[in-house]
């Protein structure tokens, strides 16, 4: 008799989901599925709205990563305007995006995942959270709070408010950077670099304690996809898409936003509201690929920030090819935080950063626009079509978490096969299956454009469909 385990809700992620683990007749894990159980349908209700509203409208998809949606939406609208935005506006958007990445990565690593690393995967769940971290490792908790606060303050000072600012607009940004805000950010950067370097040093002495998790946390060959600059540097705002394989061999590169449909197709699974994009040239489901910090470090040749470059050199030693274990998303995230501080400093020291020429004005000159940028969790794509009055007639959003959907499913199946034994769910095993998902830092509100809470349910299901055991946890 085969059986099923259900984890519902998945905890310490953004949104609501459940995991089902299917057992075979021998009581061994046959498969595992990650279901996203919320739906909102943002793409549909964008229809009929003026394209000028799209940055502000789509930013409402999420309270965690609204800046990412602002970026992709504004870039799609730039295409509809058919303008090249002022260079200063592009630099300011870059800084804002990096502020978002720093605060989001800090949230993911310190608030959501570091309790697993510091308190142990088998620690009681009531301790394995940020409050437990504050009690046992207050310096680490303070570091996380400092980094997240910095990123949020960058957003607030530049764009007016931390959540859902309207500063990024089609054609550029709403206002120039003030000297006071530039000086404030420059003054904070040394402390930020000091903190993240301290955390990186700690992390590098710690992750070796997790050899088993590294081995079984979504550690498999796949493609990796991310933006790179024209000269092959790490890129979060512009550039073109590159796809590499498990050997870090380039499979495709120079993919323009407008060409994405030649390379990415979307499959809809019957048991989840989360779309399953795949690399079109390899088909479904073989065209599985990963995006996000791990993918970005795998696809880029260089990083363009001296301290982060040293860390990237060390990171590369993890593998001769692409770094395959999703456990190392954590490491990549920390390196990107360091990169973010260095890159913001470089941009703030540009002589034109205070220029008042920050917006290009035009009406709709094209009927279609695609915008791509790198959100904290990976490549984000907005594609709009408009009528001659500039009203949206069709919209497609492909979100980072969606890109990772197939990889997350394969990853939890791998972890479940290793950690789940018998027909009862043990807490340590449950947490490890969930922790695989947390490596990807999924934002399900974004990826389904969904509404509502998101706890996690885990179910153990027999071959006849009978639920043998289940654990439902509130957040």
């Amino acid at each position, binding site marked *: 008799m085969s059986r099923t385990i259900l984890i519902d809700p998945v905890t*310490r992620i953004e949104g609501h989901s459940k995991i089902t683990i299917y057992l075979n007749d021998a009581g061994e894990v046959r498969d595992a599925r990650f279901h996203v159980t919320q739906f909102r349908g943002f793409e549909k209700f964008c229809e009929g709205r003026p394209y000028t509203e799209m940055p502000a409208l789509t930013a409402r998809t999420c309270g965690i990563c609204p800046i990412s949606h602002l970026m992709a939406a504004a870039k799609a609208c730039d295409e509809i305007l058919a303008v090249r935005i002022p260079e200063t506006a592009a630099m300011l958007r870059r800084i804002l995006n990096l502020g978002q990445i720093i605060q989001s990565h800090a949230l993911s690593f310190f608030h959501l995942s570091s309790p697993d690393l510091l308190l142990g995967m088998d620690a009681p769940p009531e301790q394995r959270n940020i409050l437990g971290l504050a009690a046992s490792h207050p310096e680490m*908790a303070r570091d996380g709070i400092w980094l997240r606060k910095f990123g949020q303050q960058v957003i607030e000072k530049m764009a007016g408010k931390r959540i859902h600012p309207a500063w990024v607009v089609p054609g550029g940004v709403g206002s120039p950077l003030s000297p006071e805000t530039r000086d404030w950010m420059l003054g904070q950067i040394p402390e930020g670099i000091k903190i993240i370097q301290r955390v990186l040093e700690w992390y590098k002495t710690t992750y070796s304690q997790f050899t088993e998790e590294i081995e079984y946390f979504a550690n498999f060959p796949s493609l990796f996809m991310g933006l790179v600059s024209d000269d092959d540097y790490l890129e979060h705002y512009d550039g073109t898409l590159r796809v590499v394989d498990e050997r870090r061999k380039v499979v495709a590169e120079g993919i323009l936003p407008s060409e994405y449909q030649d390379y990415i197709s979307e499959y809809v699974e019957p048991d989840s509201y989360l779309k399953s994009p795949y690399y079109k040239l390899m088909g479904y489901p073989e065209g599985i690929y990963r995006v996000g910090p791990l993918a970005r470090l795998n696809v880029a040749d260089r990083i363009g920030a001296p301290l982060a470059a040293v860390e990237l050199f060390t990171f590369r030693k993890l593998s001769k090819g692409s770094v395959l274990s999703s456990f190392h998303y954590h490491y990549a995230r920390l390196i990107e935080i360091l990169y973010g501080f260095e890159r913001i400093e470089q941009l703030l020291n540009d002589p034109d950063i205070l220029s008042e020429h920050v917006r290009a004005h035009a009406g709709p000159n094209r009927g279609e626009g695609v915008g791509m940028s790198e959100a904290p969790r990976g490549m984000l794509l907005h594609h709009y079509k408009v009528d001659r009055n500039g009203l949206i007639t069709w919209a497609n959003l492909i979100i980072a978490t969606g890109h990772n959907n197939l990889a997350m499913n394969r990853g939890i199946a791998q972890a479940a096969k290793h950690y789940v034994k018998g027909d009862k769910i043990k807490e340590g095993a449950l947490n490890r299956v969930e922790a695989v998902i947390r490596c990807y830092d999924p934002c399900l509100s974004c990826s389904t454009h969904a509404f509502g809470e998101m706890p996690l349910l885990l179910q153990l299901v027999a071959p006849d469909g009978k639920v043998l055991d289940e654990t439902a946890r509130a*957040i």
Partner: protein
Amino acid sequence: MKPRAQSEKHAHPTTLVIGYGSALRGDDGVGPAIAEWVEQQNWPGVTALVIHQLFPETAEEIARHDRVIFVDADLGGSTSLVNQPLEEASDRLMAHRCSPGALLRMARELYGAQTIGRLITIPARNFDIAPEFSPKTQHFIGKAQALLEKLCSENEWKIECTNSA
């Protein structure tokens, strides 16, 4: 951030008023609306913070003050304004959603703060998308403002609980 030493404290205690909730969702926006009102009063030693949700990093801001007053909407069917002392809580925290009591605890554990807290909850009836407050919530706004004025002006809090039907 260094914890505040006693000698740094003002003769009049500093007070942080945190109004939290979504301004887009009817009565849920009453906390932010009241915090905005407090900000406009420019009371000495009083700072107002308007936020969508309570974040872990709010603990740092709390630790900078001697006292904190949280203002929230209560959809639980209450019929009166409640003003209660805030106890430290050990509930589990979400990444971007904390309880007032957990934040008070974090302020002490992370920053050595001795901040004391109050929680004012205002009866609410509607958290749907709406630009205005329900009559029930509207009824209590003036009472909440008067209560806050009193709490912020007192050197030592004497009111343990206020019920105003």
